[in-house]
């Protein structure tokens, strides 16, 4: 992994089959995620959002990997960190803020779950929970269904390096390997699970585990959106062609604390964080876009302004929206609700 790879003036995207419109859209998603994040932290400090899960730092890995999938056909099994990814998958900023506030219009859960517990049947985003790594097995099951149905849809599942420790992950890797499922495992390795460093989390290394399960494993720079796209696209194409699963480890960093309940100063130094921010995926991608002449200062300012406006409106709509009515609280425990047991 070499630092700043994306900023050089070579045309990397054409090789990858990406058009300039793609690049702009990817850039917009990255920025949207970043600005949503900044906004939700601000709301948290204002006492308006009790709980925030930040994405900042992961936008390159998420948008790059997410872009490799076909929306409307493929299936996303994300985890809580994946704000940028679910935007790519089709959630809107307004929906994100509905979830942040726990409003009735939150598409993920109607205000039942904490923020960042994404889900949307319509967008093929599988409902997620808090217990770590359960979604990877759901991904395996969905991929098995696709295989049984002879569909050419591909399933992606995302998780942190901490998520690789649970038995669920092991089971999903094993199942995918045995049945050569159309499943792409994407590890966003930011070196920490809350405070626990990778060295106390992962014996050996994440991507090297792939071989033991009979699938290809690669490691790449998650701060490089195009590299993240390239590695994932190869895996998605292979899976779609019947070539089975892959494991992709994207190295990145989380810029904020784990959540708004965490304080990262107990376990990592300010210097380390500052150092990591130098590899921020957004300016890196901006440098690339400039170098190939797709954007300039003016266009950047314009885009930023557009996105900020969208987010401001989203926040406003979400703030004004209603909380769920307690009279609805007994719904959806079962499809046919029995009487409340009292």
């Amino acid at each position, binding site marked *: 992994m070499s630092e700043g790879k994306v900023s050089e003036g070579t045309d990397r995207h054409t090789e990858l089959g990406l058009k300039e419109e793609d690049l702009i859209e990817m850039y917009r998603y990255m920025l949207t995620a970043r600005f949503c994040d900044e906004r939700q932290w601000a709301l948290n400090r204002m006492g308006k959002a009790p709980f925030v899960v930040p994405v900042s730092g992961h936008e390159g890995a998420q948008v790059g990997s997410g872009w490799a999938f076909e929306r409307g056909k493929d299936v996303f099994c994300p985890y809580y960190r994946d704000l940028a990814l679910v935007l790519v998958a089709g959630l809107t900023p307004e929906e994100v803020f509905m979830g942040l506030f726990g409003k009735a219009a939150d598409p993920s859960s109607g205000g039942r779950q904490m923020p960042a517990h994404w889900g949307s049947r319509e967008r093929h985003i599988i409902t997620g929970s808090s217990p770590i790594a359960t979604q990877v097995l759901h991904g*395996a099951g*969905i991929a*098995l269904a696709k295989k049984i149905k002879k569909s050419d849809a591909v399933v992606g599942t995302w998780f942190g390096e901490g998520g690789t420790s649970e038995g669920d992950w092991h089971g999903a890797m094993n199942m995918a390997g045995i049945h050569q499922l159309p499943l792409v495992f994407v590890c966003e390795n930011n070196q920490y699970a809350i405070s626990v460093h990778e060295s106390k989390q992962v014996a050996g290394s994440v991507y090297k585990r792939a071989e033991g399960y009979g699938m290809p494993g690669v490691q790449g720079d998650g701060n490089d959106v195009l590299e993240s796209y390239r590695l994932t696209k190869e895996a998605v194409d292979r899976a779609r062609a019947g070539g089975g699963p892959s494991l992709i480890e994207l190295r990145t960093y989380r810029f904020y604390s784990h959540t708004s309940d965490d304080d990262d100063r107990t376990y990592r130094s300010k210097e380390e964080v500052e150092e990591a921010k130098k590899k921020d995926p957004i300016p890196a991608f901006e440098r690339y876009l400039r170098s190939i002449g797709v954007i300039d200062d003016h266009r950047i300012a314009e885009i930023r302004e557009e996105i900020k406006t969208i987010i401001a409106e989203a926040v406003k709509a979400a703030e004004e929206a209603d909380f769920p009515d307690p009279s609805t609280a007994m719904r959806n425990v079962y499809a046919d609700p029995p009487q409340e047991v009292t």
Partner: protein
Amino acid sequence: MAESSNGVTEKNIIQTIHDTLHDEMKRDDRMVILGEDVGARGGVFRATMGFLQEFGPERVIDTPLDECLIAGVSIGLALDDMRPVAEFQFADFIFPGFNQIVQEAARIRYRSNGDFGLPLVMRTPWGGGVHGALYHSQSIEAFFAHVPGLKVVAPSTPEDVKGMLTQAIDDPDPVLFLEHKKTYRLIKGDVPDERYTIPFGKSKVVREGSDLTCVSYGLMHHYCLEAANRLSTDGIEVEVIDLRSIYPLDMDTVLESVGKTNKAMIVYEDNKFLGVGAEVSAQIAEHALFELDGPVVRIGAPHVPAMPYAPTLEHWFLPDPDRIEQEMRKLAEY
């Protein structure tokens, strides 16, 4: 298989399960069976014998030895509109899948506010009296019935088994379908050949009586019936109710009966403390207290970790018709 006559066939319970699963596999392409040894082996109790040959390895899937995987993959299948019927080889081995079942399967509909649903059947053999010792005899219904979002059923006759297994497969929600392994070959009965379902949440008065109400399920239901029949010769008439469904729990039938007999007893082979009998008893104490002419009696297993192996100890652990008869007599005479 026995001959069918008048549209009914006599079968034991394991045969009924086999045939019901078979009919449903033929009926709905989306149904897949997965678990340990469900393929060539046809399941260690032969519930899926011949299925691999008939339906092929894509619909009859031998999984790795990982119950977390079985549960999690089944959830994924259901989310993609398949109809998974998962087998956990023994109820005692479902616990590595506990997190996936309790935190995921049970909560997916609620947490997505109804955006996702989960038509999932989880079958597993439970219960003791088969020299299975600590890890092949357990009762697990209380753990799961405590979890909103799950349905838990434990039918005890071939007819109910077919109707409720069919219902479980039709059900849009996750169902834990408990099969008492000692009854697999012990209990026979007439089973209608036609497809039918029995709705969950309806218990059944199997024997009418006026002196006391006895509530149970699974193997214990048969033992209670035997004890009640014996007492009848002494003029003690016990009303015997087979719960069949643990959640939803049909307390109406129980309370109505208690209103008539004024005495209640609950018999279960699970550990007594916080077992299903606790809930039944608590609901009686809440809703029918002043109808009672005697304490609400619970017969359950002693507070030891499951059934020991030695025949002397197994016998000591498991309630049997003798002990149930004694306790019934005591309560009737209270």
